[in-house]
């Protein structure tokens, strides 16, 4: 697993604050109800930061964010190189 994926898993664990809950890159997050829709926005922003890409939110569907693995695949598929600020 890449460092970025590990960082994302760490971020999700921190967001959920549930000791005892194990998450890996294939844990369903949306379809299981673990993540609510407000938190998904934070995840997409984190994904942009970790991949250094701009991800057009209007093109992202819930299934694209269901697992950490799918999130990174989505970023590869539709992300645009980020403009340097």
């Amino acid at each position, binding site marked *: 697993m890449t460092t970025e994926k590990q960082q994302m898993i760490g971020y999700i664990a921190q967001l959920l604050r*549930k000791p*005892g*809950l194990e998450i890996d890159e294939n844990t369903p997050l*949306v*379809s*299981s*109800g*673990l*993540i*609510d*829709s*407000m938190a*998904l*926005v934070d995840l*997409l*922003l984190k994904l942009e930061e970790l991949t250094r890409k*701009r991800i*057009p*939110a*209007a*093109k*992202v*569907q*819930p*299934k*694209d*964010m269901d697992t950490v693995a799918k999130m990174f695949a989505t970023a590869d598929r539709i992300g645009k190189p980020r*403009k340097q600020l």
Partner: protein
Amino acid sequence: MLRFAHLIEPLDAAPSERPFITHWIDEDEQSTVTFGEFRQRARAEATALQQHGLAAGDRVIILMPQSIGAITTFVATMMLGAVPAFLAYPNFKIEPEKYRSGLSGVSRNLSAKFVVIDADFPEDMLGYISLSGGTKLIRAGTATESPQPATPARPAAHAEDLAFIQHSAGTTGLQKGVGLTHVAVLRQIGHLSTALKIDPDRDKIYSWLPLYHDMGLIACFMLPIVCQVPVVMQSPIEWVMQPESTLQIIDHHRCTLAWMPNFAFQFIPRRTPQSRWADYDLSSLRLMINCSEPVRASSMMEFQRAFSVRPEVLQTSYAMAENVFAVTQSDIDRGPTTFHAEARHFRSQHRILAVAKSDKGSITFTSSGRLLPNQQVRIVSTSGAPVPEGYVGEIAIQSDCLFQGYFNRPDLTSQAVRHGWYHTGDLGFLHGGELYVVGRKKDLLIVGGENIYPQDIEEVVATHPAVHDGRVIATGIYNSDLGTEDIVVVAEVDDPLSLSNSIDLEIEIRSRVVGSLGFAVRKIFFKPPKWIVKSTAGKVARSTTREKLLKEHPELAAGI
């Protein structure tokens, strides 16, 4: 505005060179159409739709991302006297279950001739569009390939004809289609544009609001067409990701007018790094109107202070799809009034007693303004009788732009409209000629601008065998960071083993809620038997239990 007989007339008369819609995608990607270009495109599409067999009175569902293309299809449909309705386009934030049930219910009720979707519409959602009774699916763009943009043979639209259907907010797929006539929309825009002193040579509207809700559809699309005012719009989902874009767009395009729900007034400053607050010049803003959720003065003040907006820019309005849009509007020269009420009488008796601002335990309400012309409001009790002045009751309205009824749902119409008065389900009071909206009847939770009924959640949670039958409450707890309510659930469990193993139980219950209702809850608390307070009638006492929960978990009230 009554100089126009229907909504296409102002578009026909608009100056060709004036910019109409600018679609902002990001700082590098934007596109603009003038009124002239838009007219041409809409006519070409209308011609193509007519060739497909679309005729006056047919319904058309538009399922496209927020774009100039979606708006063109909407107008092209109206040009033929057919009746369009925008439905929400799926996005990553929409919970799939909820979206699917909403889509299938709403599309079935409209029994549309066409459903227009874009090329990227997700395949897994297609099966939920009701295509019974001869409804045809069309891909957008295929209709615009007509070689010669022409004026379609248009049936003469009548003022009393249905112009379009907009959907009221609602949960679990029970959104109601509000049928609106040309004349009702034109009257509403007439009243609103006079109150706001709209000037097409000076004004430019900014919007991130969805087109399938009244604020986006009426204030930020119909009003620009009828008043021939330019509008800069972005997709709501792009906005949620980058709320700072509101500041970029207003600054860059020198926008003068915007509408937003209450939570946005805090969401934007909180999601913009403070180091950049001073980078934006919002001095072009003439009016920014807080509308569609109960208004909180503190949220507006947060926005005003963060970006040094002139205080007189911030205004309020009370609006709903059933009245086309606005019922009230604050006086733009004075701004909304605040009222300080004694808290104890308000909470226990819904009685409004004025006290000084400095009084300990006072509650501050911000008015939604005065009635627009030809609007009447009554504050009524549950029996429908007017309540005495100084008391809170349900807001009932009558006006010259009230809807004709819920499309295809006479049962819902007769529940909501009684003796010519539309019963809004909102609670409020009148004082000094201004309307104050205090909340929703029926314990409604308002989460991120969405109405959620606690009973729906309780029912699902109670289906889990570990949960004591009927001993569940769902409630909303205001989250000051988000400016909206979080859903919190309390459930009693019989077996002490379940309490110690609560993570697994929580996961099971969460997936049941998402599976049945399509939204997630923020927190679930498991409690031993007899923890939940019951009323004398043996029903769970939601508000008393909520108070007990807040006492035991003060971190909830602190928004942690």
